[in-house]
Each structure stands twice: as structure tokens, then as C-alpha cells.
């Protein structure tokens, strides 16, 4: 290649390449925003509708100018009492149980692995592969025979069972990150199994535990299928309240939106914290 075309090429290239790069970047940015807004619009609509009077909620095209009212929220707060109590008890109760059971199980599958730990690990996750619909019949009968139908305990137990496999996998992966020297140092220092877990392992993996707990909270809070089929009034949860706020006749969109907004707030807060602590949990391996 001679010098002249080379120089010509050099002179031309950077500009066009930069142009391509910039336009590429802009393209991706636009796409990302379009997707994000597409996901966000229904949520925005829900929140906006929650502040509308029922009469203004069902217009088409949707109106963005209206006089906001808290009437629907007042209605929600007057009716949600038992539901939110049940949800909180089922969510927190099951999450505590998940942690109490998940930590020893994860320990036995990672730090001092028991025989055939692979099979155990696979068994746990395989329970998530069965469609829950297939199990609802037997579950109903069992709940009926044990007099747990429509009791908060049936939800606590089932939510624990539902979240335990994922929790064990998560906690196990955090435990595997704990440097083996640390455990050996604890062993030399005379810490027994319990001390090893509570005094050395748990403090190290605490960010991971927090994110595990938060994810369990979200899943339990949002669960509808089991609650719908196994409870009626004594243990009905927030998702059931949303359903029950749809009346047989008449306008209900604004009311449903207000209820859904209220039900989403805890999830959004917890999700936001979980996302931060999950990053810390995943970065935990770096602190050595």
C-alpha cells in the first residue's frame, strides 16, 4: 500500500468511525429507554389511576389532567386491615423459618458436605420444577385433614417450603465463598460447629443473608395461587384483597389501582434494598 491512500484513509476514518460509534450509542440508549418506559407505563398508569375519582378512571383515551383525590386510598385503608395483617404474618413467619432451616441445610451442603450432597442439592431445586397446580389437590386434602385450611399456618408452612430451595442454593453459594482458612482458624481456635456458624460464617455472609431474606419476602408477599385455594377469610392475604376489590358490578378501576399501588409499595422498597444488598452479597468474596 502506498502512502497516499493510507493517509487519505487515516484522515477519513476517525470521523466516520466516531459518527458510527456515537449513533450506535444513541440507538442503544433510545432502545433502552423505550423498553424501560414500555415496562413502566402500566405502573405509572396504575399509580395515576389510583388518584382519580372512579368516574374519571375509565375514560378512553386516558386523561392525564384530573383533580387528584385520595378517596380510593381511604377506601383501601379502611378495608385492608385483616388482609395486610395476614400477609405480614405469613411473609415474615415463613422468611424466619426459611432462614432457620436454610442456614443449617446450606452448611451441610457446603462447608462440611454430607454424603451425597449433590443429590440433596438437586432434590431441593427439583421440587421447584413440578407445576404447583399439580400439587394443589393433595395439598388441599392434607390441609383439610390437618385442620389447617384457611389458617395462617398453612401459608407459613407452604411459603417456607416454596422459598426454601432457592434460599438454600443462595446461602450455600455465599458459604462457599467463605475462605477455608477462616474456618480452619476457627477450628484451631476451638470453635465448635455452632460457634463456627454463628461466630464466623454468619457475620461474613450477612449481606448475602439479607438479600436472601428480602427475596423470600417478595416472593411470599406476592404469592396468590396457594392463598386463593387454601384460604377464605381467616388467612386471606393482600393479593386476595386486590381480587376482592373487584365488585360484581359497577366501576372499580380506580379502587383496584389504589389497592394495587398500596400492595406494591412494600415490594418496591424491599426490592430496592435487596438489589443493593445483593450486590454487596455478591461482592462479598472480594473481602478477604
Amino acid at each position, binding site marked *: 500500500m502506498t502512502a497516499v491512500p493510507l493517509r487519505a484513509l487515516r484522515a477519513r476514518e476517525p470521523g466516520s468511525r466516531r459518527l458510527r460509534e456515537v449513533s450506535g450509542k444513541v440507538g442503544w440508549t433510545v432502545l433502552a429507554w423505550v423498553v424501560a418506559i414500555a415496562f413502566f407505563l402500566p405502573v405509572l398508569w396504575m399509580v395515576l389511576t389510583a388518584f382519580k375519582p372512579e368516574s374519571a378512571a375509565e375514560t378512553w383515551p386516558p386523561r392525564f389532567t384530573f383533580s387528584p383525590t385520595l378517596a380510593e386510598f381511604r377506601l383501601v385503608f379502611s378495608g385492608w386491615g385483616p388482609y395486610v395483617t395476614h400477609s405480614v404474618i405469613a411473609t415474615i413467619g415463613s422468611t424466619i423459618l426459611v432462614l432457620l432451616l436454610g442456614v443449617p441445610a446450606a452448611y451441610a451442603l457446603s462447608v462440611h458436605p454430607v454424603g451425597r450432597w449433590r443429590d440433596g442439592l438437586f432434590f431441593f431445586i427439583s421440587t421447584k420444577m413440578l407445576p404447583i397446580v399439580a400439587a394443589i389437590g393433595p395439598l388441599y386434602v392434607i390441609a383439610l385433614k390437618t385442620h389447617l385450611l384457611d389458617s395462617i399456618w398453612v401459608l407459613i408452612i407452604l411459603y417456607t417450603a416454596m422459598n426454601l430451595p432457592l434460599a438454600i442454593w443462595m446461602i450455600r453459594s455465599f458459604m462457599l465463598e467463605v475462605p477455608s482458612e477462616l474456618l*480452619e*482458624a476457627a477450628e*484451631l481456635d*476451638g*470453635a465448635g460447629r455452632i460457634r463456627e456458624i454463628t461466630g464466623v460464617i454468619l457475620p*461474613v455472609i450477612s449481606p448475602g443473608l439479607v438479600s436472601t431474606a428480602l427475596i423470600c419476602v417478595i416472593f411470599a408477599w406476592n404469592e396468590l395461587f396457594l392463598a386463593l385455594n387454601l384460604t377464605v377469610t381467616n388467612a386471606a392475604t393482600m393479593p386476595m384483597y386486590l381480587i376482592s376489590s373487584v365488585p360484581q358490578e359497577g366501576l372499580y378501576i380506580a379502587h383496584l389501582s389504589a389497592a394495587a399501588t398500596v400492595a406494591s409499595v412494600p415490594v418496591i422498597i424491599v426490592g430496592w434494598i435487596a438489589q443493593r444488598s445483593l450486590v454487596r452479597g455478591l461482592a462479598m468474596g472480594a473481602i478477604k
Partner: protein
Amino acid sequence: MAQVRYVSASRVYGKNAPPAVDALDLEIRDGEFMVLVGPSGSGKTTALRMLAGLEPLDAGRVEIGERDVTFVPPKDRDIAMVFQNYALYPQKTVAQNMGFALKMQGVPKDERDRRVREAARLLDLDDQMLDRKPRQLSGGQRQRVAMGRAIVREPRVFLMDEPLSNLDAKLRVQTRSQIAELQRRLGITTVYVTHDQVEAMTMGHRVAVLARGKLQQCATPRELYDNPVNQFVAGFIGSPAMNLQTVPLTDGGARLAGTVLPLPAAVRTAASQAGLGELVAGIRPEHLHLANGSGELAGEVLLVEDLGADALLHVRLAGDADPVVARTEGRTPPAPGQQVTFHVQPDDIFAFHPVTGARLAG
């Protein structure tokens, strides 16, 4: 305080893998500073972990203070270990780290505090540092906390696995002497693992050289240097390493660089008894004396490494492929490309069996 004994102790990791530690017989005296040294993968860490109880034995036994501890769990062996990466508990403060073992033993809080403080003073860790977390400390401070955690326990044996390898060169030299000093003061039997032969030579009362899981020689640093039992020890101990060359035997000596090096009579008898036609001759760099043209070994200088006090000459001997290294005085070293000659005392030549590597009487 106690003596330590390995009796034919072996550790085999895999079914078909060679033993990581192969029938180790080693006796460490009460209060002794014993250094295990060897190249990477020679089984030093494994040997130490066997003593700590972190690695089971496949054969033989280990004793601490006359007691067979082969099947005793680590916490009941009355030992303390300093890990290479210190393994400090990240969520505990320095004081909690140091006091953890005492807490596990059920030592009351006052007593614990007193002993932690005492150890901290011994290691120049000031009081405000005791409340910090390990991640707020520098590498050197962490190293001292790890030492402190071991000292506080007042164990019968200290075990240390390359505790200086994460420090920078200057700090390593400083800490090296501090550890040796501390050990002398406390008088606690210590087993110290390193791959650095300078550390081994400067710190150990005695040094055990390992290679491929086997104990090569255990002796004082001086003895190792002056009287290596085989070619491996000779080549491993000393910096720069001993010059080792396979040389054919002739009447009265060995042929090297076109001349005949005189060998001591004892070596010649040993070689002829073994029916050898050649042997490995070893000469330490400082035993190649520059002799203004009158020396028996001639060669050409390839490279000069000036170290200040002295200089290292890399020299290609006449007719020989492998360059040798000679240590000379640093002021007026010859220049690269220059022809030089060396004089060697027959007594300074080590001779090794060319196949087994064993030292031939010398």
C-alpha cells in the same frame, strides 16, 4: 512448650498421586525454631497442616510433647497457627480476633483483656488499633494481629505458613528479625514454613529441606551450607545457587573447561568404588577466585551484576555450554566480553553422584 516429632508421617491426596508428604521423620526440640523449606509443591504446607490436625495422616504419626496426637482434633493439640493470608475474622475487631480462642476456652473477660493487651504491647500494636476491624489495617499490621492471635493463646507450638509472603520486601526483612526475636524471647517451639531460603537460613535454629514430599536434610543453616548431603540441597541452599556441572573423571581429578580440576582423594576413592565415569561437581560462586590469568579455569564474562558490595559475574567457561556464576569484589569487576581465569581450591569442590545426586564423600 513441647517437642514435636513426625514419625514416618505420610499424606497421599489422590489415589494415584505421589505422596504429598512421604514418610517424614523429623524431630523438633523443645523451644526450637524449625524452618521447613523447599520449592513449590514440595509438601511443606501439607506437613504443617498434618501437625495442626487440619490434614489427616495416611501413615505414621505425629507427637507433640511425647503425646501421640495423630487422632487428636486441632483444638486439643494446644497449637496456634499463623496463616499465609492471616485468616483474620473480618467482622471482629482486632481485640476480638486475638481473644477469640481464649473466649472459646472459657477464659473470663478480664483475663482475656489483660492477655490481649499484653500481646498487643509485645507486637507494638497500640490500644486504639485494638478496636479496629482487620480491613482498616495495613498489611503489616494485619500480619502482627495474626501473630498476636497466636501469641495470646500461649500455645505449646507455633505453626506459621509463609507469614511474610504478603509483605513488601523491606517490611519482610524487618518482620523476619522481629519474629525470630519474639520466638527467642517466648521460647515456644515453632515450625515455620517458607519457600525462601534466605528466610530459612536467617531465622531457623535448624532447617529441614523438603523436595517432592521427602525430607532431604535437616541441619543448622551453617551445616546445610557447608555440608549439603545431596545435589538438591546444595543447589537449593545459597544465593546465587551453587554452580553444578556434570564432568567426566580423569586420573587425579575431573575435566572441566579444558583443564583437570584436582579432586580430594576421598572423592576419587568414592567415585572409583562406585564405578563412576563422571560426576556432578559443585562450586559455590564465592569459591571461584579471580586470578589474573594464572587460574586453572578460563572463560569469557557474559554479564556483570553489580550488587554494590560485591558483583556477580556470569561466565562461559572455555568449551562448556552452561555459564557459571562467580562472586567477586564489587569495586573493580571485569567488563562483559573480557577473558578471565579463576582459581579453585580442591577442598571447595563438592562432588555428587550423577544419578542419585548423593554427596560423594567430602
